[in-house]
């Protein structure tokens, strides 16, 4: 992989167009199968969508829980799909991943997941999804370039209760947020949102004063 570059997700930019999903399945190593999910959060209330690539944990839970030792990392930290000869199809990784990334492919009897387009990044290209993404909600560039061109800042630390997970993939958050806390869901939004920030209003009737 190109050592200077990293993968960044900026959810505020996502427009839900599915380019990432459509382009992923065009990649040479897994043609016809997309390894990225685009979540529609709650369509009745909002148009918000969120792309989910593999976050490439520094100490990947999927690999820790694999009884067959089938999930390997490249020397530069990319977590790969399960090795086909080793994978026993137990789905431990599918259940354990805090981001819901690995998928057990029944027809292949193998876990497959996003490998950050290792075939592309290892020869200096950007991953397919981050190349085509029209909104650049998915971006593959240098830390310096992201900090120069984007508001907010990039974090790669996630706190799930007492558990901290560090990932190779960064996510853009407002300035002053050191990590993304996803342990406590409150009725008024994610704990990670800056205190005092209004929850998003996507109800047109509210905007019109008709609600």
């Amino acid at each position, binding site marked *: 992989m190109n050592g200077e570059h990293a993968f960044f997700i900026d959810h505020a930019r996502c427009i839900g167009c599915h380019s990432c999903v459509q382009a992923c399945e065009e990649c040479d190593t897994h043609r016809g199968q997309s390894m990225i999910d685009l979540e529609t959060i709650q369509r009745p209330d909002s148009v*918000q969508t969120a792309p989910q690539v593999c976050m490439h944990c520094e100490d990947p839970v999927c690999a820790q829980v694999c009884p067959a030792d089938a999930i390997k990392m490249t020397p530069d930290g990319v977590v790969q799909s399960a090795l086909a000869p080793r994978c026993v199809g137990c789905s431990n990784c599918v259940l354990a991943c805090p981001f819901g990334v690995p998928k057990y492919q029944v027809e292949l009897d193998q876990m497959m997941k996003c490998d950050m387009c290792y075939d592309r990044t290892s020869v200096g290209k950007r991953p397919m999804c981050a190349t085509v993404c*029209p*909104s650049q909600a998915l971006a593959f560039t240098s830390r310096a370039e992201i900090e120069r061109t984007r508001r907010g800042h990039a974090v790669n630390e996630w706190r799930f209760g007492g558990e901290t997970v560090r990932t190779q993939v960064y996510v853009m958050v407002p300035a002053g947020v050191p990590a993304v806390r996803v342990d406590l869901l409150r009725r008024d939004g994610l704990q990670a949102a800056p205190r005092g920030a209004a929850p998003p209003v996507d109800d047109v009737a509210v905007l019109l004063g008709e609600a």
Partner: protein
Amino acid sequence: MARLPVSVPDLVRRYGPHLNRAPAGGWAPAGEPDRVVPTHCCFCGQQCGIQLKVRRGKVVGFEPWEDFPFNRGKLCPKGVKRYLQDEHPDRLRAPLERRDGDFFAEVSWDAALDRTAREIRRIQDRHGADAVALLTGASLTNERAYLMGKFARVALRTPHIDYNGRLCMVSAAAASKRMLGIDRAANPWSDIPRAEVVLVVGANVAECAPITTDYLWQARENGARIIVLDPRLTPIARTVDLFIPVKPGGDIGVLNGMLHVMIGRGWIDRRFIADHTTGWDEVVEAVKPYTPEHGGAIAGVPPALIVRAAELWGPAKTSFLLHARGLEHHAKGVDNCMAAINLVLASGRIGREGCGYAMITGQGNGQGGREQGQKCDQLPGARDIENPDHRRHIAGLWGVPEASLPGKGLSAVPLVEAIHEGRIKGLLLLCFNPVVSLPDGNFVREALERLEFFAVIDFFLSETARYADLVLPGALMEEDEGTTTNVEGRVIHHRKVVDPPPGAREDWRIVCDLAARLGAGDKFAYRSPAEIFDELRAASRGGVADYYGITWDRIDREHGVAWPCPTLDHPGTPRLYEGARFHFPDGRARFQPVTWRPAAEPTDAEYPVVLTTGRVVAHYLSGTQTRRIGALVDQAPQPVCEMHPKLAATLGVADGDVVRIESRRGAITVRAQVVRTIRPDTVFVAYHWPGDRSANTLTVRAIDPVSHIPEFKVCAVRVTKVERPVDALAALPPEAGGLR
């Protein structure tokens, strides 16, 4: 009489739309391609750079083209999957002749061309030259658009040629020509991120011009405030600084209201107005009544939103205004656009870095397609067909007497009305699917059934081509060569990637052969699209849209060249109106006073809901191409009726229920999608589908008096919950107009 030869389900079974889901050779690892050809997407006006991978003479996939500056590798899902048209089972591979009651029969090219010429001659001999018409499209290359205009005026000698850009760009075009002098985006897209405030009016950028999203977000990263006007909370509206959920047709309430506030607060560039414009006093007078309260009542929004918009827009140092079909698709579309341009001129922020204005051109060659002479009132170079000097220039170049050039013909909607009335009896059509894309679809079908002779050039049997007497199989963009002009006015080069399939032919060859059979062979003796481009350059020379200095070599070297470009050493003109010089003899822009008027068909007790129509990101225009690509159909299989839960509650409709939407012109049946992201008084249906799922069955056949654009964005409907229909059309696959 051109009725359908067999039933729709039978036609669908044979000619599709069927879904292509896998590239040539399947999904197995393809290995190294033999060639990777940099070219452009065939779809919308963004005209993104893309590389197509070719193996054994077939397109097998794509690779992003990161060097092309407009999109830097970015693509929307349509661009990603466009290559799946190439080896498609529905491709037409022989001319087809209708056999009533028995499909179409394959006939030879000679037989098809001979008959087409014979029928055209017969109709013209009996009823006059203007009894034959041409309908063309804005997804054609510049070369093909130019050829069609010349074919109409020289080979057919009919005034009646118009194009589906009439459904797209004409309101913006008329407003720009009247006020600024040139029908083109005033600025390159690179000016967007340099603006302090960006106003987006009636443009669902995320779905209809997805690549523009990154330009908007980059402006925001640089500190810009973004304002969006739309009846729906679109994906870009979700996170912008100010979203104004304007009622369809109410934009002038906001735009005039903003100007009213700006005048009151002194946020006006009086120096610019005095030095570089005319007509300001009339505009001041016109916007006097448009207090935020009055504007808000027209627009159906709280007055405070208008004041806030003026506060963001008014005092800014730099700004960019973008609009698209949401503002333009109205029987007052030109007035709407003029109200927007008034805001730009009043601020004096145009013609400089980070200061600009643009319409977001919709169709692939929406820009170039409207300059080369396929509009009913235009000659090449965006010249006026009624202007004696312009006529002499073109007649001289074409080697025909000026008096032989027809005058102004009918625009698309009146042209179809003339067919319906029997005044036009013969029609040649390409790159247009009016059965799906024109308003009042039942009327369009009736009109086509009345033609004495109807020939279509297309690569798939579109819903319109089903009515043809003869279908001539044409070529995809990547099977021919030529240029288009993108949303910025940048002329770009579509390379030929592969040959058309055996039996199909490049459109320009078909048209030239037809011209020869009509006795005009010497005027259409082109050996390549390059020769057509060279003639186009000369034809446009000295015109507003001057391409003379643009060559295919220059385009390749410079990643496109923006017109006007009058000489080979001219750098091109990415930004118009620099130095505040507008394209009028006195160099001054023209303010235009605008007064709001209601929609052609307001709601009433019988039809109490506003229907507005538009697009989704997975489909392009009438869907002839994208409804044949499996991955895109999976993403958006069928239209839905978006409605707010408040409206749904009054109708007793739950999410996923089947509803019947009825206007004075017809009815369709689709599933309801209940969402808070739309105004409670409005429903939305995307228009890409045919038959009983076609939004244009409902839309009103009302046109702008100046631009003749139809009012796709407002008509009156009623909505009722119904049982799922079980008829033969509903049972079709959704891509063919069925309902799931």
